[in-house]
């Protein structure tokens, strides 16, 4: 469904990704793991066209994303939950969801119902400004906002970042349920142990390069992962 081929990208004089290739097939949940500053966020920003890659190709659903401007990517079927959630703090939770459905207004009422079924808590908080929600609720709201466009591919940038351990558990549980609902998910995470329980395959990104890929079990068992990331 998504193919990233030999992508090099960065900001200004600085390159954050070098010759990165990866693939996500329909129905899969795939993780990109790696330390802070490895280029994980940049990778997602390239896929949703917030930054133009310097070299390489992006294909989605059989068509190149190269000519697609950032604001037309959602309509192609890619929704991106950005780093730090980035809700509109003074809009209510429900208004944030409405923004998520900006390109698919006709289905708004129906989607809202589906999303509230998945996140009953948000329904209780619908009239509250998003900035006053708890961290976990904000993450739910950010994910729900992305689901409002009923994407073919969901990009999740560190959904567990900045949340209390208990909340992290529930967010991963949620991600698991979203995968089970049939969404195709590409998730970027530092919380390796947790994310590898949820996804089928994973890529390890270090200093802008993919250094390992394979099934979640294989990646988890790899000696460098065991040593460098899990402290075993």
């Amino acid at each position, binding site marked *: 469904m998504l193919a990233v081929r030999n992508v090099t990208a960065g900001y200004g004089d600085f390159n954050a990704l070098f010759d990165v290739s990866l693939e996500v097939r329909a129905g899969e949940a795939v993780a990109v793991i790696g330390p802070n500053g490895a280029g994980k966020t940049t990778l997602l920003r390239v896929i949703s066209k917030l930054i133009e890659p310097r070299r390489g190709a992006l294909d989605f659903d059989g068509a190149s994303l190269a000519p697609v401007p950032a604001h037309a*990517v959602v309509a192609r079927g890619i929704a991106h939950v950005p780093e730090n959630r980035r809700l509109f703090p003074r809009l209510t939770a429900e208004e944030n969801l409405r923004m998520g459905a900006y390109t698919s207004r006709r289905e708004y009422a129906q989607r809202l119902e589906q999303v509230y079924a998945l996140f009953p808590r948000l329904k209780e908080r619908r009239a509250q400004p998003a900035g006053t929600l708890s961290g976990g609720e904000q993450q739910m709201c950010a994910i729900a906002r992305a689901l409002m466009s009923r994407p073919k591919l969901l990009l999740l940038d560190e959904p567990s970042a900045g949340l209390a351990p208990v909340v992290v558990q529930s967010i991963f549980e949620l991600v698991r349920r979203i995968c089970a609902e049939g969404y195709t998910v590409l998730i970027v995470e530092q919380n390796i142990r947790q994310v590898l329980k949820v996804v089928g395959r994973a890529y390890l990104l270090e200093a802008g390069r993919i250094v390992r890929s394979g099934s979640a079990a294989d990646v988890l068992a790899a000696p460098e992962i065991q040593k460098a990331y899990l402290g075993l």
Partner: protein
Amino acid sequence: MSEIFDIYLLEAVLNGLLLGGLLALLSLGLNLVFGVIDVVWICYAELIMCGMYAVYYLYVQYHWPLALAMLAAIGVVALLGWLLHQFVIRPVLNAEPINQLLVTGGVLFFLQAAATLAFGIEFKNLGVSLPSVRLGEMSFSGARLVAFGTALAGVVALWLFLRKSYLGTAIRAISQDRGIMPLMGVNPARIFAITSALGGALAGVAACLLVLQYDVHPAIGLSFGPITFLICVLGGLGNMFGGFVAAFVFAQFIAVGGFFFAVEWGYVIAFVFFIAMMFWRPRGILAK
């Protein structure tokens, strides 16, 4: 004696209320544009001046029906707002705020000079006078009543638009986080252009109301531009509700101050109040 005194005071307060409605409408477009695009249109009142000329020429020279001339003028100023954004603001969107101020300040003088060349310096009167309305012993200008009603309707319409529509929600959202708007499928450049046209249209509505009360001349912007700007600052720049409240407070100072002393003193008192508020509440009346 004391009864008559009271009724004139009441008349002053009510006239202040009417003036407040007009000032609220004046501040609306400027506040909207600043709140969304983060650029102050110093030349806002000059856009209104252009709108007043548009009404004048269409109605007096070309004999259009007044309502049609006013609608066209609103369209003209909306177009001017859009042009201002595309050709003047866009290139400096990420420049220093001082440069943005200087650029729109330059447009102010450009429009004034252009209007002087095109229309001359004489005062032009629309020649329409609405009958004044008497209420017991009190009398109110018809033009002011119309302005007040239109201003309130405009405020309510804008509020509903910003609250209830997708576009309005996007306009509020973009001022909170410009960077992720593309992820919502929104093209920020388009929202900015629409907001600018909307700000222009509001200036156009203000022009229609002002041209009923005042003569047009190239420098007329200077007589209400500063007040509009001060009201926006008093309410907290970009805070539309704050601007709304500030307009009524300011108008009361002018009207009631003018009642106890002289009209000119009303303005002096209002500006002293403004300066005091800048020390006391620099971020606006409603700032927390």
